[in-house]
């Protein structure tokens, strides 16, 4: 008889009325020729047979279940089996026959939309609550300055701000080059080379800088904040803080929100500068516009109000990204799937909200900082 690892393989032979079984009937041994064995068993099951287990050395519960199913959940009329093996099959037989659970009902498109809207409303409610709690925390800190989480604030400022400088500069610089290069081709057709300064200045300082940084920071710091707070919830660290009488919003959420609201305007200035530098380089190479002329004309082409709008957007976006990240982090349930879903939701909602708020900014400030015709 062939064998694997010293175990005789399970086998089945039809001998007249007898079904002669032999070998080791275990899941591991059956697996390589499972389909074959099941066909044999199905053939053996169709009429009155005598089941002979005397050659069988071992049965595991998988095999016991298989036999019991083959026999249509009743003992065969005649069988030859040792008490030990019979006991194993008896245990499989004792199990009540439970019907398969009904498949989960698929939701209709209307229900899906409804669930989505309810979830958005629920999250908005959570964000407003968290915002309110932050205001209460700030009032508390104003009255008790010793509770100021200064250390956490500076640590977050460093992580979300200073550490983001290289990547935001690189991205800004490359975007600046691209816009400048593409605009230069168009402008040259009209002989309007000089307007490249207006295009770059207004678009980068007012619009692209803040949005670019917001998307970068949402992906970089927002996801990190959600994951960090989420894991702190899973490992009960947040509960440990609460036990020590430390407010979770005051010690965890507030420093993050405040730090990002401070760091974002600075990052916006930094990234816009890098983008303008990139644009300037491309304009020089493509149109022969000298950097000295570029820098001299920039203040005339771009009214100062645009810089304030850019900084204001930065502050607002930073605040929103951190608030959304903390909100989703605090609602992570203790399993890995929830952690991943909440981190994704945090980044997606933050970027969506940034673009939404950017559009509102554009409408509200349409009279400000643009040359009026």
């Amino acid at each position, binding site marked *: 008889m062939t*064998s694997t*690892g*010293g175990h005789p393989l399970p086998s089945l032979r039809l001998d007249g009325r007898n079904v002669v079984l032999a070998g080791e009937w*275990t*899941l*591991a041994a059956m*697996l390589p020729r*499972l*389909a074959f064995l099941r066909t044999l068993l199905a053939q053996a099951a169709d009429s009155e047979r005598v089941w002979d287990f005397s050659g069988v050395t071992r049965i*595991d*519960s*998988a095999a016991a*279940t*298989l036999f019991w*199913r083959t026999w249509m959940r009743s003992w065969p009329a005649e069988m030859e089996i040792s008490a030990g093996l019979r006991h*194993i099959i008896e*245990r*499989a037989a004792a*199990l009540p026959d*439970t019907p*398969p659970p009904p498949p989960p009902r698929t939701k209709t498109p209307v229900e899906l939309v409804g669930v989505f809207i309810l979830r958005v409303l629920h999250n908005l409610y959570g964000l407003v609550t968290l915002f309110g709690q932050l205001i209460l925390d700030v009032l508390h800190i104003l009255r008790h300055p010793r509770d100021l989480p200064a250390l956490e604030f500076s640590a977050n400022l460093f992580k979300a701000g200073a550490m983001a400088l290289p990547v935001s500069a690189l991205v800004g610089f490359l975007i600046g080059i691209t816009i400048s290069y593409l605009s230069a081709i168009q402008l040259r057709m009209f002989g309007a080379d000089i307007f490249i300064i207006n295009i770059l200045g207004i678009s980068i300082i007012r619009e692209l800088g803040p949005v670019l940084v917001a998307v970068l920071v949402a992906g970089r710091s927002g996801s990190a904040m959600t994951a960090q707070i989420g894991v702190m919830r899973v490992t009960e660290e947040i509960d440990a803080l609460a036990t020590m009488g430390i407010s979770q919003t005051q010690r965890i959420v507030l420093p993050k929100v405040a730090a990002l609201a401070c760091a974002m305007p600075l990052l916006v200035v930094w990234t816009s500068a890098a983008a303008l530098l990139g644009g300037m380089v491309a304009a020089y190479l493509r149109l022969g516009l000298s950097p000295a002329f570029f820098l001299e004309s920039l203040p005339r082409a771009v009214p100062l109000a645009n810089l304030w709008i850019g900084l204001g957007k930065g502050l607002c976006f930073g605040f929103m990204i951190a608030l959304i990240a903390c909100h989703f982090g605090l609602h992570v*349930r*203790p*399993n*890995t*799937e*929830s952690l991943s879903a909440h981190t994704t939701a945090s980044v997606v909602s933050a970027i969506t909200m940034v673009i939404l708020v950017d559009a509102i900014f554009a409408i509200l400030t349409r009279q400000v900082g643009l040359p009026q015709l």
Partner: protein
Amino acid sequence: MSRPPAVELSGIWTRYREVVVHRDVNLVVEAGDVVGLVGGSGSGKTTLLREILGLLKPSAGTVKLFGEVLDRLDILERRAVRQRMGMLFQHGALFSALSVYDNIAFPLRELKGLDEDWIRQLVHLKLEMVELELHHGRLMPSELSGGMVKRVALARALALEPELLLLDEPTAGLDPDRSETFVRLIRQLQRELGFSVVMVTHDLDTLAGLSSKMAVLADQHIVAYGTPAEVMAVDHPFIQNFFCCERGLAALTKANS
């Protein structure tokens, strides 16, 4: 035909930079043995268990499972050997995103040859084996108590009815009553299914209740290996300290009576 030993460690050395954890450890676990691995905190018991599992590679020496060296096998053969062993992690290591039912069904589904109906019966059988109710299958791991996590983890470890079960602190975190029930459950399953066990534990009651042999890990190697009586006769400061005060004697006499 005699079966090859379930585990065979020969000349195991483990080093972390300058720190030597294991110095020439040799251990043979025969098929059907229940071996309790004892040692002080930080003596490298769990490290040794992880080396048996193949999660860690020893600095020197070979680990043989069922007579095979894992490193010399290809992916499929290695998976086949791994399917012959089950591990009960100290904290359960249940998949937190899956329900209890799906956790136990997971190794069965991975075999890719079983229909869902068969899997359901096997999962129910395993739930019954570890004395859980069928409706517990719908719970998520985060909703379970410490004792239930251990039971579900045991059910998952036994899903494929392995020939070797590794236990890391099986009763840590359970109250004495629960811990005694759990030990009785493992012993009963071991008798019925006849698997070998390698177990790391600090708990004397667990050790006395389960193990047929003991291995004592001290001074970076196995200082004693044999039946409880043989081990206790060995004159070594750690063994004298560990067993031969009143708590040790009380636990062992209780188990023997």
